[in-house]
């Protein structure tokens, strides 16, 4: 396995790493102390901007720029809200931070609150993650007793309270404005934007919503310096190392830290240990959570123009393009949460699409008609195809429904459903037409991986 610098996850393997006692001598809270006692808030924000950290929750927005959207003349203190509603199918990286190193997240929260002038931080965790919640709560209590969290962190006049807020089972609450409604005790339906949360968010106050991994990276960014941290990446304008997840048909599924700009080939064959069955090659990979359009290893980058963002990889396979927010967008997909779902040659793509559209039709909040109806119809048509009740023309029906969802709703959920649906239809069209003629053989998915022992692992 390649030897990458391990920064964010460098305390994962310490025994009892979730307790302060175990990691106190390893530098925990040194940077938070520095942030409160030595640094100007603007200096912290400047390091984060220099770090070029692209939001780790899926949208890839530069965190330093986001902080800059807070109104300068606001009379009320902003809130910091951490999005720990990890629920995008295929994504399981934030959970490792909360379970293995909750103090790193809390330290990042403290530093961010100092940087943006917030007094209260809510960590919104999905309630299913019971271990994450327990470890975060006991870590916050430990930090409170040390005087790091509370009214005078490190003896400085700057109230910094951190609370865990439990969700109740709704994928849409990972959408930041739905999350805010849920935090306020309401149904988790997304809000119309503008106003954006930075202007009017939680309880009507300016609010910054960031992903767990993004905020857990702040202590290392300040410790190393933003520029040096950024330089860990193989790509420009997309800095640092990040957590990669890999699941599905690989030998060593798990979460691994590596520089930004790793290729999908490295993720699958080096970190992931290669394909699960020697006789079943890679058929397709969903790169960063189920909302990101699928990639095929046989597709070749065509970018002969010098100024094309993918020109350096002209003539190479899609899975040899470095994984970055901008490179993946240029490929016609998205980097998303950087957690890949790997599928071998035994996998039927109609079955895969049906599984995922079941997810989206279950999780649509129902507020906007195109999404509520569209997700349901996509799933219904796919169910017909899978069970042999479909028709070849259903392929065009699926395209039509998906096209009418895109761009017609309050939040990005409908686009996050339609885009992967269209990706499957474009790249595996013949398979869908074939299903319209003959259906899909029973148990296509599970049959490829029966009777697996304890193969799974974590870096």
């Amino acid at each position, binding site marked *: 396995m390649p030897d990458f610098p391990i920064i964010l996850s460098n305390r994962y393997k310490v025994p009892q790493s979730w307790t302060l006692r175990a990691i106190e001598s390893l530098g925990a809270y040194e940077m938070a102390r520095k942030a409160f006692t030595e640094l100007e808030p603007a200096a912290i924000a400047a390091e984060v901007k220099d770090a070029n950290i692209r939001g780790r929750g899926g949208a890839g927005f530069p965190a330093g720029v986001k902080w800059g959207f807070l109104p300068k003349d606001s009379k009320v203190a902003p809130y910091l809200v951490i999005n720990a509603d990890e629920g995008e199918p295929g994504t399981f990286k934030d959970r490792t931070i909360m379970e293995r190193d909750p103090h790193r997240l809390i330290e990042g929260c403290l530093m961010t609150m100092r940087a943006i002038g917030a007094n209260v931080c809510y960590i919104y965790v999905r309630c299913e993650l019971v271990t994450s919640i327990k470890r975060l709560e006991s870590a916050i209590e430990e930090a409170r007793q040390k005087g790091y969290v509370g009214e005078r962190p490190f003896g400085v006049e700057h109230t910094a309270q951190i609370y865990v807020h439990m969700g*109740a089972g709704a994928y849409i609450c990972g959408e930041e404005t739905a999350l805010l409604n849920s935090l306020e005790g309401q149904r988790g339906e997304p809000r119309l934007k503008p106003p954006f949360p930075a202007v009017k968010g939680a309880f009507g106050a300016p609010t910054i919503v960031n992903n767990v991994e993004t905020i857990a990276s702040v202590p290392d960014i300040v410790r190393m310096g933003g520029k040096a941290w950024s330089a860990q990446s193989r790509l420009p304008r997309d800095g640092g190392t990040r957590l990669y997840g890999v*699941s599905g048909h690989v030998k060593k*599924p798990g979460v691994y830290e590596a520089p930004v700009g790793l290729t999908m080939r490295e993720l699958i064959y080096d970190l992931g240990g290669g394909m699960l069955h020697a006789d079943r090659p890679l058929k397709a990979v969903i790169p960063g959570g189920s909302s990101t359009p699928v990639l095929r290893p046989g597709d070749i980058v065509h970018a002969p123009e010098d100024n094309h963002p993918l020109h350096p990889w002209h003539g190479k396979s899609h899975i040899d393009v470095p994984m970055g927010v901008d490179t993946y967008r240029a490929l016609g997909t998205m980097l998303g949460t950087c957690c890949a779902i790997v599928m071998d040659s035994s996998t039927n793509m109609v079955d895969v699409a049906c599984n995922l559209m079941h997810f989206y039709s279950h999780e649509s909040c129902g507020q906007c008609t195109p999404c509520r109806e569209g997700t349901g119809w996509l799933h219904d048509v796919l169910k017909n195809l899978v069970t042999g009740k479909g028709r070849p023309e259903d392929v065009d029906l699926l395209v039509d429904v998906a096209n009418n969802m895109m761009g017609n709703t309050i939040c990005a959920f409908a686009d996050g459903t339609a885009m992967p649906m269209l990706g499957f239809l474009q790249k595996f069209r013949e398979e869908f037409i074939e299903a319209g003629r003959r259906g899909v053989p029973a148990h296509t998915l*599970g049959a490829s991986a029966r009777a697996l022992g304890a193969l799974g692992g974590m870096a």
Partner: protein
Amino acid sequence: MTFTLSAESEKIVDELLTRYPQKRAACLPLLHLCQRQEGWVSPDVVAYVAQRLSLATSEVQGVVTFYTMYHQQPVAPNVVWVCRTLSCDLRGGRELQKHLEKRFGCGLNGTSQDGKFTLKSAECLAACGQAPMVQINDEYHENLSIESLDKIVDEIAAETVVTARQNPTNGKS
């Protein structure tokens, strides 16, 4: 019969209310607390939460129906959530669900013949690297095979005593 929280939990509620600038924000955590005590979110729980947070019962009911983790009907002492989403499905999650349906003699959202387990399907539980998995009550069980899952269910079944009040199949067909 009206619902009341235990004195100990009431103290937690008082502390919860200090965390937010608006009372209403305690709605989700308070519903969780009540469900932990009562086993499900009964109409009495909804009425209690509404009264405690000065909300209309319809507002609380709207919240309850939005989220999947609030049980709107009584459930068995153990709730088994089988992850059905893609990464688990690629590694045999579907077989686990079929096996449990057979073992429990019920379908999804049903309760086992012995009244000890309610079977539900879950959307991605963020354990994709350890697929297939199920969540039973508060615990994740990962990297499962049918045999290892059976062993876990056997152990939980042996520790579970079903009282008449708990058994959701009681008095129903």
